[in-house]
């Protein structure tokens, strides 16, 4: 009898089955449902289903992240509707403006996501929570309404790609560079409908903030979920978040059936950059260095944690960004914002001529707080660069690590951070 993947173990428990196998369609009972402004779009279908109360408000988390603070009247009304719904439904874990964060960051830093759980949210980057050893997948608004009503959803148990990474990376090279390399290898639909598991010495050595980057961008491989086995690093993170009791070790069986295994040797690998207009269009930094930029954005659920801000500050300390460059630094949560102020990082960014904004998804999806004009070029620590993603369809977006974004801001051109 063959062993089981992480996905099969988690979905067996969540579907109240002894065992499940890839290909099977199951009803998964949701351990955690989290939501942002997409909840506003789910209110009408929820109302139409005809159930008055959310199945279990204690399993719901809501925050506001895409447009913070609201830039238009429409958004303000959206936020108002969300607020009133949370209050009426008794959703205690509603994190309003000021207490907010990009939802994927907020749910991990508050200790809401635990190994072994089925986590569902109305956003494509829900995959990030898989770094905690959970099965975390994104859905849309109508299905969010259905989960609020019933507490469950149908899932086809996905096959799994096993990505093993080993080797020591070059200086100022990290998880962002690794995941870009992986996406280049698989293509932006290389894991479509599949789950991804990461393991190997390089992954084991990564702290949680780096592991989140890997799981986060499995979305750009088309994956349904991107998981990392839970271990001592996961345990310490949960303890620091006040949820140590929820820790449990979770990994696949050694003889688990994988659809494919990728073995990636990253020994000595340097920074990578995803070039316009696709996250899989990845090149080593040497091939794009020198490209002139107009904007540098350090933000998003992918790469705006305190360690990312420290990395950028290390390069920008005592310097000024190039005179033709706008640099925007947007922490992934208000908790990170406060920490950055406390550590003096905010001061470093402001002295360097950058803006330092309240936490929001804003610029990453071309919403507000840093939208690109036609022909502008941006280097960004975010996750997607499809045409029009950050504003004008004629703008160009390069995706890179926080180190590369900061070094490029400093010189006004895409710059290898190892020499900055």
């Amino acid at each position, binding site marked *: 009898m063959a062993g089981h993947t992480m996905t099969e173990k988690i979905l067996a428990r969540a579907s109240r089955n002894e065992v499940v196998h890839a290909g099977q369609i199951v009803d998964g009972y949701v351990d955690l449902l989290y939501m942002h402004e997409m909840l506003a779009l789910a209110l009408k279908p929820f109302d139409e289903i*005809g159930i008055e109360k959310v199945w279990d408000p204690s399993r719901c988390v809501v925050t506001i992240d895409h447009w913070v603070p609201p830039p238009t009247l429409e958004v303000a009304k959206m936020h108002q509707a969300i607020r009133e719904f949370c209050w009426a439904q008794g959703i205690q874990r509603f994190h309003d403006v000021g207490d907010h964060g990009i939802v994927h960051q907020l749910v991990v830093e508050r200790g809401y996501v635990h190994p072994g759980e089925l986590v569902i949210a109305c956003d494509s980057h829900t995959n990030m929570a898989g770094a905690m050893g959970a099965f975390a997948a*994104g859905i849309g608004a109508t299905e969010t309404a259905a989960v609020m009503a019933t507490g469950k959803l149908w899932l086809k148990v996905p096959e799994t790609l096993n990505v093993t990474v080993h080797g020591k990376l070059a200086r100022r090279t990290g998880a962002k560079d690794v995941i870009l390399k992986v996406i280049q290898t698989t293509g932006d639909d290389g894991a479509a409908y599949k789950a991804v598991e990461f393991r190997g010495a390089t992954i084991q050595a990564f702290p949680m903030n780096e592991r989140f980057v890997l799981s986060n961008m499995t979305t750009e491989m088309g994956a349904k979920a991107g998981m990392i086995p839970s271990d001592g690093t996961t345990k310490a993170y949960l303890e620091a978040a006040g949820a140590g009791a929820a820790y449990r070790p979770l990994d696949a069986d050694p003889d688990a059936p994988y659809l494919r295994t990728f073995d990636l040797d990253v020994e000595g690998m340097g920074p990578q950059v995803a070039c316009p207009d696709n996250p899989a269009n990845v090149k080593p930094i040497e091939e794009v260095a020198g490209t002139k930029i107009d904007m540098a954005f350090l933000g998003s659920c992918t790469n705006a944690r305190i360690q990312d801000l420290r990395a950028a500050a290390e390069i920008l300390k005592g310097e000024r960004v190039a005179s033709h460059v706008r640099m925007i630094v947007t922490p992934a949560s208000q908790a990170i914002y406060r920490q950055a102020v406390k550590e003096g990082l905010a001061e470093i960014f402001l002295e360097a001529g950058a803006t330092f904004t309240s936490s929001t998804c804003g610029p990453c999806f071309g*919403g507000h707080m840093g939208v690109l004009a036609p022909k502008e070029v941006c280097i960004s620590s975010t996750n997607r660069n499809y*045409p029009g993603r950050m504003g004008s369809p004629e703008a160009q977006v390069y995706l890179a690590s926080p180190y590369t974004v900061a070094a490029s801001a400093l010189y006004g051109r895409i710059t290898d951070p190892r020499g900055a």
Partner: protein
Amino acid sequence: MQTRFTGRVWTFGEDISTDHIIAGRYLTSTDPKVLSEHAMENVDSQFAKRVTPGDVIVAGTNFGCGSSREQAPMALKAAGVSCVVANTFARIFFRNSINIGFPVVECPGLREKVQEGETVTVDLAAGHVLLASGERVRFQPLPPNLLEILNAGGLVPKLRAELAAKAP
């Protein structure tokens, strides 16, 4: 519900993302009509003006990749597109479409056989696309659980009906 759709073809290539289908700057609206006026704007600025009710989108691989925004299938449906046939779909777009009662089918290889503007008939129940040349291109029909949602007109009407059936 209707399972046969005859319409004029719009062709698109590979990796058409939800950023192409409806740009982030329009997501402050949840009005299907407003969304439909900007459908596909990032890839073809004339699409929303020229699309006519019943038209069929035929695309390459990974259609609908990227963001989970349900406004993407909403915009296409409200623009009058009858269904999307792609070589492959990204998973959240696919699920969202079925959930709002918007037919989407995977028909690998179709994109390479059709021309922009030709009239085709997509038959969901029979599992084939009839081309202008008379050729039939077969596809694997949707699994029963998804057909059930589509037949009900979407996930909401399906759940409503189930609740009504359970009521004393």
